[in-house]
């Protein structure tokens, strides 16, 4: 059973990181695109982009908390 719980921890964070990874990639890509279209808006884009990144990242963090709480 010991080995299985280690596997479960790894799977929990590994699978949980896929979605947020794609999400943060999309956020970054769209922000770059926006800056490319309108370079003057860089300062306006940066803060909302960081906020959106933090929201996406939080989902991976949920998976991390689950991974830690598996005994």
């Amino acid at each position, binding site marked *: 059973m010991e080995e299985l719980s280690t596997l479960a921890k790894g799977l929990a964070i590994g699978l949980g990181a896929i979605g947020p990874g794609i999400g943060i990639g999309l956020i970054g890509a769209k922000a770059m695109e926006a800056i490319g279209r309108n370079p003057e808006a860089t300062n306006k884009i940066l803060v909302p982009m960081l906020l959106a990144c933090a929201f996406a990242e939080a989902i991976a963090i949920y998976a*991390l908390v689950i991974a830690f709480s598996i005994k």
Partner: protein
Amino acid sequence: MNTLPSISHETTLFAEPIFYYKNFTFTNALLSSWLAVLLIIILAVILRKKLREVPKGLQNIFEIIVEGALDLCDQVTSSRTLSLKVFPIAISVFFFVLINNWFGLLPLGGLGLLEKSKEGLAFVPFLRGGTADVNTTIALAILAVLGANLFGIFSIGLWKIFNKYVNLKALGQIFTKIKNDKTVIIVAPLTFFVGLLELVGEFAKVASLSFRLFGNVFAGEVLLVSMATIIAYILPIPFIFLEILVGVIQALIFSMLLVVYFTISATDHNEHEKREEQMSVSV
């Protein structure tokens, strides 16, 4: 010759108790959140004593922060009068969360107790970021959601807030509107059900708000510990900068969501619809 028993430095999911007073357990997260409160009080008293027309030194820094935060608050609420009402609680929560997040990063975490457990000695630090304990974040999240609903009750009335969740008004409209509009018999039960979903949504708000903050801060601490075990002292340094940034961003997100919830519950949805109807008529 005696060899020293190995000491485990594991970061636990829950805050560890440091000392007991009768039945009450003092955990390290509790201690550091009280220290944070003390720090805020001292800062506030110093600022209040040296308050002057032309800002200088510390007052200058805080005026910049508060002014920027008030502008950000205006962007969310889109009205100065409303943001002046919400702002005091939001900025207090912001500073409390921020200082708690940064307390976990202090090297003072190296001071602590050695406690005997089943697997030998375990190290228990005196300071653990208050927000790295799930109890603190759940308390803050409940405060935010309950506060938002109370704020809504005081600004648009108890009956309207009650109807947001248990939509008796929509059910009542079946009888009043059925002569003009036959579709109301399908729409009204649906609106009632949406209201019940909104009630569940309030609990989801508490859960997501608390676990976001707790998870981010706790994961940061674990990250620092595990980096320190790879190469001590050198490797954690860039991650400490990352964690300082994460502390600010998470405090900002928490207080901004609080402002958003307060604003949502203070705006009257029916009035909004009426205004839209009027606009469409005038167009």
